[in-house]
């Protein structure tokens, strides 16, 4: 009896699917909404005000690319994007330069001490920007970096370094010690062994750090809000909600900006999710 089987299957699976649907709808709704907004004509967007028969969930008029065009040609969106990439790449470079040796040192060279120090460094990741933006504003002013991208380049590593050092420490620990000792017996110094064996083997870890730093930079808002005033110096996460918003909200281009800025970050992050989780949960999972 295929129908009975289908029914039984439905009955056992149905609640699960309803639950999943509800959660997905909740999580993804704003993204659905920004997508449909991006491609709707203005007339279609603003009709909802007056007519409860007028279904806003679908295209009532043909979709349009005009909002995207407006965003690209009439707003400083590309300036924001360029600034974000500039800060992002420099922050990634600084993070790698500092976290790789630090993570290695914690994992291999400092012994029992390294464990404690590692936890200490990780804890500094918990110090929120909220506690620091006031003194840092002072510091940035003292250094003459106010309203420059360099202020962000200098400050963003304060949250990428602790987390990435922690991530890399875990990564380096997972590489068998024998292999670098072998490289040392085979004729390399400790540094040579790191360069020839440890780094190539931890390529996935390094990539994770790159992505993580990049996404953190793209998400950061508070420091950027504090240090940057000039529209020409803003990053995406700051510029879009602050400088693209005027008295009359131009929701079409605005949602287009949100959409095309969020989705790449989301995809990148999703690819490396499992490693981030391992970092967040630290030893607790293995416990």
């Amino acid at each position, binding site marked *: 009896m295929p129908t009975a089987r289908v029914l039984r299957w439905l009955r056992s699976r149905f609640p*699960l699917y309803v*639950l999943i649907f509800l*959660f*997905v709808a909740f*999580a*993804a*709704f*704003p*993204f659905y*909404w*920004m997508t449909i907004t991006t491609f709707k004509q203005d007339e279609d967007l603003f009709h909802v005000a007056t007519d*409860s028969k007028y279904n*806003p*969930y679908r295209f009532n008029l043909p979709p349009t690319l005009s909002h995207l065009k407006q965003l690209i040609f009439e707003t400083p969106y590309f300036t924001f994007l360029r600034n974000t990439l500039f800060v992002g790449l420099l922050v990634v470079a600084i993070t790698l330069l*500092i*976290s790789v*040796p630090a993570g290695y*040192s914690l994992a291999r*060279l*400092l012994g029992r001490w390294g464990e404690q*120090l590692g*936890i200490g460094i990780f*804890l500094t990741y*918990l110090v*929120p*920007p*909220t506690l*620091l933006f*006031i*003194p*840092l*504003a*002072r*510091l940035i002013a003292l250094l003459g970096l106010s309203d420059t991208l360099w202020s962000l380049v200098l400050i963003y590593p*304060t949250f990428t*370094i602790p987390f990435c050092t922690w991530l890399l420490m875990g990564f380096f620990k997972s590489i068998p010690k024998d292999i670098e000792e072998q490289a040392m017996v085979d004729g390399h110094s400790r*540094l040579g062994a790191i360069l020839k064996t440890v780094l190539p083997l931890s390529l996935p870890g390094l990539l994770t750090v790159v992505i993580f730093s990049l*996404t953190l930079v793209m*998400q950061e*808002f*508070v420091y950027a*809000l*504090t240090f940057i005033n000039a529209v020409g110096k803003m990053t*995406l*996460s700051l510029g*879009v909600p602050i400088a693209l*918003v005027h008295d009359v909200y131009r*929701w079409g281009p605005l*949602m287009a900006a*949100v959409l095309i800025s*969020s989705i790449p*970050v*989301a995809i990148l*992050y999703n690819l490396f999710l499992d490693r981030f989780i391992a970092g*967040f*949960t630290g*030893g*607790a999972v*293995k*416990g």
Partner: protein
Amino acid sequence: MEAAREIPRARYRYLLDRERLLGPLLISPAIGYILLLIGLPLLLAIYLSFTNAISGQLSAQFVGLKNFQTILADPLFFQALKNTFIFTSISMLIVLILAKVLALTLLKSFPGRPIVRFLILLPWVAPISLTTLSWDWVLGASNATLSTINWTLRAVGILGPQDWIWWTSYTTPAMAAIILIQVWRLLPFATIILLAGLTSIPQDIQDAATVDGAGFWRRLFEIILPLMLPIVAVAVLFGIIFTATDMTVVYILTRGGPYNSTHVLASLAWQRGIFGGQLGQGAAIAIFLFPLLLIVAFFMLRLARRTEVA
């Protein structure tokens, strides 16, 4: 023989073979960065809270507890303190319950699971300042007549034809909206962490408990929950930090309004310290987040120590 010949030529390189030297050498840039740009500012924050420093002027006088007297006499401060507490506790409570349900749901395999996972994760991975803006649009925070939510509530008959929810014009809906966004954003994070905890419980242990005659509830309360406790703690501790210290949602959605009724400590500190230029007062407000941080750090450390022992 050959080793003997190499000694003088390469002696300086032997320094880098010494682990006692190499270890501290490699870690020192990180420690330096952290001390200089986290440690020092933290001390500076405490110092500033005792001065009358204002932005744009580098000199500042020590004024003792004056800043604290000012903010403690300010009802707005207590409002912000209360809001911080309300937003954090309510959203954490909702997040934990929903995350537990969602994690148990996602534990089962079903077709399309990777896509579902991606969609459910979106709120966590997309920049919050941008997604808050899209919530502004969904809710019609800036213009209730454009609110999809209002339209939908009307379509299903909850709202009458002439009823409008002006989401950010009144305190209660504004606070509800802020909590909604915090829940929305933290849910994926908490779910994924709980999921990691669930999958990390060895099947052996569950099987052993089943063989020992434990039913589902006994397994849940005596095996699964105790084993997951460290993980739940991680999710809660991070969640608290993320919510209690966040000012992005409040800043973009309400700017603390209406009538400063939705300020949290972080946004109030920003308002006073950066926007208003009263660095000393801003620092004094932000300092109140410090005990919270210490508590969280304390539990994190205990957690780390406990898992180390195990």
